[in-house]
């Protein structure tokens, strides 16, 4: 649609601008201010320069949390995206099954995040949880409270359980937009199931898949509540992701300076990712 050039449209955007500025710009400015100062409370601040940033960039704790976060994001993507596509391909296209599937599948998305954590905290326990009990009954030693590997498995399974539906819904939305005629043509040609997927379904899902990958990457990069409830970042520090580390510093110890420096670095990374996301999306749309 060709849009008219009209700078008065700014007035329509004004409410949003004021609202978001209040809840985004002022806090961000505050973070910048804190990040160069030290405080002992009571709003008394001392100039600290770039000390916090230097400390942060040379601390192994920060880089370990970052590495864990990246590994986590990549595992999540490698599982959720193929699984999501597979399930979406097998969803019914019409009939009573569609609303039932959609509603049931979207259910995990609507559970408050800490309740998701609680559900899995209970479900995985080897004394009172269905999963933990039967996995142990099978002879596999599984205890997410003590074993870092088990903790990772639990958190990854939980995230797959929680978010695969998002990928399914996105892919499904892409799939239903394919006209029936395409499938009929393929049928007449005797195209294999793979050919149908490769040449008809995948190209149609391109855009939504891109959205799914980027959304899942960014959301898993800032995951906080669910692993915090399940493992509290432990055992040891094995599941301490960036957000968990940040909240520990900021609200647990109330170390304003280091927390602000960490927030800023974290935010810059997210900003870069968002920009990549936005650029890829808009250019993809423009190409079409």
């Amino acid at each position, binding site marked *: 649609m060709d849009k008219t050039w009209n700078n008065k449209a700014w007035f329509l955007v004004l409410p949003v*601008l004021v609202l978001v500025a209040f809840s985004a710009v002022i806090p961000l400015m505050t973070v910048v201010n804190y990040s160069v100062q030290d405080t002992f409370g009571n709003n008394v601040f001392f100039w600290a320069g770039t000390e916090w940033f230097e400390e942060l960039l040379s601390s192994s704790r920060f880089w370990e949390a970052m590495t864990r976060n990246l590994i986590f994001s990549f595992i999540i993507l490698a599982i959720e995206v193929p699984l999501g596509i597979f399930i979406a391909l097998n969803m019914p296209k019409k009939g009573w099954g569609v609303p039932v599937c959609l509603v049931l599948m979207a259910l995990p998305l609507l559970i408050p995040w800490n309740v998701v954590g609680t559900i899995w905290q209970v479900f995985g326990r080897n004394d009172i949880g269905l999963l933990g009990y039967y996995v142990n009954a099978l002879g596999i030693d599984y205890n997410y409270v003590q074993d870092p590997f088990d903790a990772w498995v639990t958190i990854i399974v939980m995230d797959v359980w929680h978010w695969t539906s998002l990928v399914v819904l996105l892919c499904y939305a892409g799939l239903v937009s394919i006209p029936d005629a395409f499938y009929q043509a393929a049928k007449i040609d005797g195209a294999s199931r793979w050919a149908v997927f490769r040449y008809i379904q995948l190209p149609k899902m391109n855009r939504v898949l891109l959205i799914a990958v980027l959304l899942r990457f960014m959301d898993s990069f800032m995951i906080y509540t669910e692993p915090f409830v399940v493992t509290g970042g432990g055992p040891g520090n094995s599941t301490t992701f960036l957000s968990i580390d940040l909240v520990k510093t900021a609200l647990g110890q109330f170390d304003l300076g280091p927390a602000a420096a960490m927030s800023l670095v974290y935010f810059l990374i997210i900003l870069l990712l968002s920009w990549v996301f936005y650029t890829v999306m808009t250019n993809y749309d423009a190409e079409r």
Partner: protein
Amino acid sequence: MGGANERTERNAMNGSAATEGLASALSHSDLDRRMRRRGEESRWWWIVPTLYIIVLLLPIYWLINMSFKTNAEIVSSLTLYPHAPTIGNYVTIFTDASWYSGYINSITYVVMNMVISVAAALPAAYAFSRYRFLGDKHLFFWLLTNRMAPPAVFALPFFQLYSAFGLIDTHIAVALAHCLFNVPLAVWILEGFMSGVPKEIDETAYIDGYSFPRFFVRIFMPLIASGIGVACFFCFMFSWVELLIARTLTTTDAKPIAATMTRTVSAAGMDWGLLAAAGVLTLIPGALVIWFVRNYIAKGFALGRV
């Protein structure tokens, strides 16, 4: 859209060219059998979704199961269904003010946030969908970054900000804080729906002498009613599931139910049954709203502005 269709069609044709020789070599009966086999395959379509849904529902079932058990039963042995079903846990929640007020608090700030977000987003989305203006693309991008920003980054400054304004532990504080990610979300969803409305409708209305506010409320909003519904749904959803900021900004009077739950978890002597019952009750609002928007969920997600 047209371009994409063409490209896909061309791809499909390439695919067909490759299989053409094969297809013509097959006799008609072969082709029939092939097609029948594919028909048979589709009779088993329900297996994968059903398995997936069972996996999704198992942990939820376990929570519901636990909520109807007594603590003694939970701790003593693993039972697949409550042998001595009790609604005691729910009774506790509905009679103890510190529990049920959590629900009231959560719903209060979620609804406030929904109203504020959608009301502010409506004119902005209209501006983005109809006009070009100075810096529009960058403004749009800036909104996106707020949707993507980690709540952990904002938890601390929010606490300081709302303390300074004396808004800590009020519903409006949480509602305003959640606007950070819900307003951009609402703008994007609504913009997507508004772009689908032909511009001629606006022009005709202006020619007929409608003023902008009257046109917007009387003609335009009914046209995008489903979009408003979807935007409300997503605002509800993200405000409902968010805990970090809500917990940071509240202490007692506006404490969300989710935070009430964490407090009980850390208390000495886990009351598993009560915890499970509280968890089950948090599932209900989500399940209800999702039923109302079931036909639009897929579309809402696919707009790519979530």
